[in-house]
C-alpha cells in the first residue's frame, strides 16, 4: 500500500487508524469535541464490512464493546469526558474479563457537564482507573494528528497483546486540529493477525472444542485473589516493557518541562524560544501515561544535579503527582496549570521557567 498524505483532524485520524488496524466493531454516542470521530465511523465502517452502532447511551456503547471483544472482534468506542465517566463500570468489567478494547477520550473541561473546550483533567480517571477494582488501562497520549493515527494502530496491537483496555487520551484541540498526515493504510502485517479465530480465549463459536467462558466473576474463596495476582504480574510486565516518551534538550537542562498531548507542543515551543536565548530548558513528554515513563525520570533525577521539573497541564495538577512519585524527592517539582477552557500560554511557561532558572 502506497503511503498517502492527507489533511485531517485528530478525530478523523483516530477513526481512520482504527479501520486500518482492522477494527470491526464500533459503538458510540455523540458528544463534542469528538463528533468527527463517530461521524467518520458512521460513514466508513459499513464500507469496510464492520459494524457501526450509534448506541442509545455511553453505557450501552461500552457494554457492546465488551460483547464484540468477547467474541474476538477488534472493538472500539469513543467519547469525551462526561461520556467516559458513564462508561467506567463497563471498563472495569472489560479489564476484569481481560478483554482487549480501545477507548478514546477526547477530553473537554469538567467537572460535571463542564464545557466543550479542551482540557486534560481526566488524567486521574484514565491512569488511576475511574472504575472499581485493582485494574489498569494502558493510556497513550498523542500530541499531533500523525501520532493520533500511529498510536491508535499501536493501541489495537497492545490491547490484543496484553488483553487489556487501552485508552487514547487526547484533548479537544487535538481532536479538532487538522494537520498533514501520512497514512500507512490497511494491511500493516502486525495489525491484521488478530482475527477472531486466532484468539484462543474468545467466545467465537465452540464447534469441535471446549466452550470458552469470558467473565469477571469469581465466587469461590481465593479464586479472585489468584486472578488479581495474575493481573498484577501482567501489569508489571507492561510497566517494564512499554514506557514511551519524547525528549528534547534534556542533557544539560536545568529546568525540564514535562507535559503531554497538545500541551507538550506549547511547552516545546517555549523550550525552543528559551534555548534561542541560551537558557537551559528541556522537554520530557510522556507518550505512555500508564505505564508512566518512570525510568527516564529515575535516570535524570539525581540528588546532586539540582534539577527542576516544571509540569505543565491543562488541569490543576494531575500528572504532576506521577512526576513527584517518579523523581522520588531527588529533584524539585513545580507546577503550572489552567483548566476550564484556559490553556497555559507559551509566554506564561517561559516566564515561569525563567523564574525557576533564577532560583
Amino acid at each position, binding site marked *: 500500500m502506497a503511503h498517502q498524505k492527507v*489533511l485531517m483532524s485528530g478525530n478523523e485520524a483516530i477513526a481512520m487508524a482504527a479501520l486500518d488496524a482492522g477494527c470491526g466493531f464500533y459503538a458510540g454516542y455523540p458528544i463534542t469535541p469528538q463528533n468527527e470521530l463517530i461521524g467518520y465511523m458512521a460513514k466508513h465502517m459499513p464500507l469496510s464490512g464492520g459494524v457501526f452502532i450509534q448506541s442509545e447511551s455511553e453505557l450501552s456503547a461500552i457494554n457492546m464493546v465488551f460483547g464484540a471483544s468477547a467474541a474476538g472482534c477488534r472493538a472500539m468506542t469513543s467519547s469525551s469526558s462526561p461520556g467516559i465517566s458513564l462508561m467506567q463500570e463497563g471498563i472495569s468489567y472489560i479489564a476484569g474479563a481481560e478483554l482487549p478494547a480501545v477507548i478514546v477520550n477526547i477530553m473537554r473541561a469538567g467537572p460535571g457537564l463542564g464545557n466543550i473546550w479542551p482540557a486534560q483533567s481526566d488524567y486521574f480517571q484514565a491512569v488511576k482507573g475511574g472504575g472499581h477494582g485493582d485494574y489498569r488501562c494502558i493510556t497513550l497520549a498523542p500530541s499531533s494528528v500523525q501520532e493520533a493515527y500511529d498510536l491508535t494502530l499501536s493501541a489495537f496491537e497492545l490491547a490484543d497483546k496484553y488483553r487489556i483496555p487501552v485508552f487514547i487520551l487526547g484533548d479537544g484541540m487535538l481532536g*479538532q486540529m487538522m494537520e498533514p498526515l501520512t497514512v500507512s493504510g490497511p494491511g500493516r502485517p502486525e495489525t491484521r493477525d488478530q482475527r477472531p479465530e486466532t484468539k484462543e480465549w474468545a467466545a467465537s463459536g465452540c464447534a469441535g472444542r471446549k466452550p470458552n467462558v469470558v467473565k469477571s466473576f469469581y465466587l469461590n474463596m481465593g479464586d479472585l485473589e489468584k486472578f488479581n495476582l495474575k493481573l498484577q504480574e501482567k501489569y508489571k510486565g507492561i510497566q517494564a516493557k512499554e514506557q514511551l516518551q519524547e525528549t528534547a534538550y534534556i542533557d544539560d537542562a536545568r529546568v525540564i518541562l514535562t507535559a503531554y498531548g497538545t500541551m507538550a*507542543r506549547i511547552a516545546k515551543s517555549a523550550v525552543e524560544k528559551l534555548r534561542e536565548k541560551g537558557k537551559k530548558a528541556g522537554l520530557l513528554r510522556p507518550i505512555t501515561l500508564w505505564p508512566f515513563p518512570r525510568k527516564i525520570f529515575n535516570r535524570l533525577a539525581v540528588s546532586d544535579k539540582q534539577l527542576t521539573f516544571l509540569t505543565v497541564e491543562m488541569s490543576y495538577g494531575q500528572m504532576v503527582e506521577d512526576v513527584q512519585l517518579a523523581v522520588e524527592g531527588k529533584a524539585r517539582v513545580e507546577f503550572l496549570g489552567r483548566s476550564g477552557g484556559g490553556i497555559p500560554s507559551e509566554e506564561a511557561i517561559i516566564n515561569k521557567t525563567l523564574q525557576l532558572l533564577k532560583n
Partner: protein
Amino acid sequence: MDKKDNEQRISGRENKVIERLVISGFGGQGIMSLGKFIALCAMRENKFVTFIPAYGAEVRGGTSHCAIIISDKAIASAQCEEIDTLIAMNEPSAIKFTPRLKKGAHLFVNASMAGKPRRLKGLHLHHIRFTDIASRLGNAKVANMVALGAYIARKKILSVRNIIKILPEIFKQNTLLIHLNEQALQEGLKTK
C-alpha cells in the same frame, strides 16, 4: 512551480519561515472553508501546516474563526498567540483579533462590512470591499476567495498556480464553481 514564481515568493516572504494567520467573520462567510483550503494548499507545497477551528457552541450569525500556521520547519505549538496576518470578514472579528496582531502584521478587513479599525500603529491595513467584489461576480459567498487573492498578492505565502490547480478537487469538478472561485481569486489579486 517555475523559477520566477519561486523567487517572487521567497522575496515576498522576507526570509520569514513562519506565518500565523487568523481568519474570522460571521458563520456562513466561508471562514472554515477558506482556512482548510489554505491548509491544504500549504500541505501540497510540502510545507508544515496546522489548522485549528473555533469549534462547538457557535451559532448562526455568530463569529467564527480559525487559526493556521504555515512553516518551513515542524510546528511545535499550533496555538496562534501572536498573529502575523488577520483576515477579518466582519467588524466584530476585526475588533476582537486586532489587539493580538504582531508589530508589522498585515490586517485585511472586509470594507463591505466593517469600518477602518482604530489603533493601527505599526500595522499594514488593507481595507478592501471583499463582499462587494464577490457580489459583482454574482455570488457574495466567494468573498472569502477574493480575500485569499488579496492576501496572496501581498504576502505570497502560497503559489497562485498551485491554488488554481487544487480548486477542481475542492469543487468536485463542478466547472461553474471552479470558474467562479478562480475569478474571485483573480479579482482579489488585482486589488493590489
